[in-house]
């Protein structure tokens, strides 16, 4: 089997998308604004600035794919679309699997498309604590604009699968608050392949929304370019240098971009690493600190009935009853058989017996609003995250599992598989209670996340934050960060829309001060 290859077909990529095939020799480019990363942060900045007349270049380490490249071959998609083939981990007492997209469109290509505004109390908290102007009222126009662009809507009822209806039935029976999920989709038909590139084009990832818009207004996208560092003249960012990323991890021709404004938008792990590789330090010493993750735990419920949960939209509902308790949300998610098997600690015959029941499984997830903060350190030029879940967060996870288990048993689940490395199963509420009331070592948890945030947090205080309220790095000229690393705290909900809204706001700041960035 061959490793991930860019799937751009001759002559079909837009004329201002360039890939490794177009960059055989060293390349030097000039522009007003160079954006590193094409996901939820980079793509909106590119679209807004290109429309305002800036000459914009977007550099993306991943390859350029189109909707037709997204097939049902899960592992091929993972290898192509996920950073490090999905094998990234935060180290700690219990390692946490981190999933990040690496393709034009960034993580929006592989996320579930949940489009939620930042909770108002969190925005108010930022105003008070980080002293930034993100009041709900100030953010409102940016959220509205993003929602229009990505078509944030509730799902069509007929596209919702049985697993999600079961979740709703369970929550309704308990009298818990359950809400329709809002997702960036135009009549999602429920292929349930969000995490592997939407094969129908319904999900409005940056790849099919902001990037086409940016291209339409003249931006240029260079895929397969790995940026090594930001170039500096004194404390002014003047561009970037990088290399063409070759298919097997090698480095190809040199790519130099000279720009009046440099916008790192590589996510909470790679933006701090890029700053560090470039020798950029924050007076606060907070680059790479303050990592929050929204750790997820999953629980598999087995039913007698055939659920076939791969048929239907991804996360149609969210149980929000316990948000005030810090437990975050519950949702039903489908994982394809390979990923399900990988996530089970079982093996051999037992694994086979369980997997034979694949269509009777409902995989549910629980998102924790974390109080823990971790860090990202740059080791040999690469980011490595460290994160030890706080006792308080682990206690919330236990409580969440207990509640979620109750929900499933209450509507007839026969068995639950719990997220512990030692393969714990519960076949009754009493058994579940017994398991969860016993001490669970931190190392036993099987955790994962797709929400990495906060490592270049914004704030007015130069001694406590990395950027100002518009992502402009304190004490560095012409460098504006636009990704999840800006978030001062965890936000308790899916961060895509928050990132997009903040990026749009940042772009507005650049347009408002356009003269500064024209020479």
């Amino acid at each position, binding site marked *: 089997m061959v490793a991930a290859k860019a799937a751009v077909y001759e002559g079909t990529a837009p004329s201002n998308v360039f890939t490794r095939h177009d960059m055989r020799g060293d390349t030097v480019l000039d522009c007003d604004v160079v954006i590193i990363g094409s996901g939820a942060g980079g793509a909106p900045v590119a679209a807004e600035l290109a429309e305002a007349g800036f000459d914009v270049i977007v550099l993306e380490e991943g390859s350029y794919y189109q909707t037709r490249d997204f097939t049902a071959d899960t592992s091929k998609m993972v290898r192509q679309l996920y950073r490090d083939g999905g094998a990234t981990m935060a180290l700690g007492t219990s390692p946490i699997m981190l999933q990040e997209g690496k393709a034009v469109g960034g993580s929006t290509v592989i996320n579930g498309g949940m489009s939620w505004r930042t909770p108002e109390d969190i925005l108010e908290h930022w105003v008070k604590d980080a002293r930034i102007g993100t009041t709900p009222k100030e953010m409102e126009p940016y959220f509205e604009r993003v929602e229009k662009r990505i078509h944030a809507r509730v799902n069509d009822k007929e596209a919702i699968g049985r697993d999600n209806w079961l979740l709703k039935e369970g929550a309704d029976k308990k009298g818990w608050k359950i809400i329709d999920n809002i997702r960036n989709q135009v009549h999602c038909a429920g292929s349930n392949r969000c995490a592997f590139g939407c094969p129908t084009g319904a999900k409005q990832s940056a790849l099919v929304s902001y990037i086409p818009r940016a291209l339409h207004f003249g931006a240029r996208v260079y895929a397969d370019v790995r940026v090594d560092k930001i170039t500096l003249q004194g*404390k002014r960012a003047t561009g970037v240098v990088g290399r063409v990323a070759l298919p097997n991890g090698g480095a190809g021709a040199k790519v130099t971009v000279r720009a009046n404004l440099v916008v790192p938008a590589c996510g909470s792990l790679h933006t701090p690493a890029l700053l560090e590789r470039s020798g950029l330090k924050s007076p606060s010493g907070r680059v790479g600190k303050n990592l929050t993750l929204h750790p997820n735990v999953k629980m598999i419920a087995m039913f007698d009935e055939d659920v076939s949960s791969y048929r239907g939209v991804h996360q149609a509902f969210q149980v929000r009853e316990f948000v005030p308790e810090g437990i975050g949300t519950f949702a039903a998610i489908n994982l394809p058989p390979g990923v399900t098997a990988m996530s089970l600690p079982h093996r051999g015959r037992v694994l086979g017996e369980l997997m034979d029941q694949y269509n009777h499984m409902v995989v549910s997830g629980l998102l924790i609003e974390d109080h823990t903060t971790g860090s990202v350190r740059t080791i040999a030029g690469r980011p490595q995250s460290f994160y030890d879940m706080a006792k308080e967060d682990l206690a919330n996870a236990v409580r969440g599992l207990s509640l979620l288990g109750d929900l499933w048993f209450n509507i007839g689940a026969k068995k639950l598989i719990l997220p512990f490395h030692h393969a714990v199963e519960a076949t009754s509420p009493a058994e579940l209670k017994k398991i969860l009331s016993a001490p669970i070592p931190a190392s036993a948890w099987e955790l994962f996340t797709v929400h990495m945030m906060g490592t270049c947090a914004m704030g007015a205080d130069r001694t406590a934050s990395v950027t100002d309220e518009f992502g402009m790095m304190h004490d560095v000229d012409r460098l504006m960060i636009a990704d999840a690393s800006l978030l001062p705290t965890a936000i308790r909900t899916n961060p895509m829309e928050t990132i997009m809204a903040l990026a749009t706001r940042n772009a507005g700041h650049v347009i408002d001060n356009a003269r500064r960035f024209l020479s």
Partner: protein
Amino acid sequence: MSVASLPKAHTFSAPSPFPTSAALALEATPFDQLDDIFMNGTTPDPEQLEGWEFRGINRMPLNNVPWAVAAGIKKFVKGFYRGNDGRLMGYNVPIVCNALDGRWHYKPSDEAPKHWGFFEVTPVDATARDNKFLHAVLLDYGKGGNAIYDVMRGLRDYLVQVDPRNPDLYLGRAYYALGPARLGKLNYFILERHRRA
């Protein structure tokens, strides 16, 4: 001490001849806290400086040792004016080192003060050698037209406005240029609006 806890100074339409409690509080603030206040200052508006003289107080490290008083530089005045070539310039005036909260008496006399230690005032250029604090303005004594043998030529001061709501109070941080090297931070100084230049 946080900026918010500093008492507000008078508006500069009728400045007091005495240092305000805000300025005196800054003078008594520990050095590391001054670092925080300086870092969180805002960029001064040159128009708010031009045409005015400011009372200055030097805040040396180890403030209990009265070396600034002994050297006669504890109190001073800085004035700002627009040069004929359009550049914003500034000068220093030596001051009698009486009580810190006493009047500022110019040397050699209030009627004929000595102007010396001239400097140019510019926004900090991120690409220049003196780019330590981008949120400050630079008082560059090397470009003030001082005599070639004048030791003042080596001074490089960064100036920030302490509180964005108060254009009367500023905090400066001094460095000394020795070729390409910069020695510092030598000291902080507090500037407070004093009188029309």
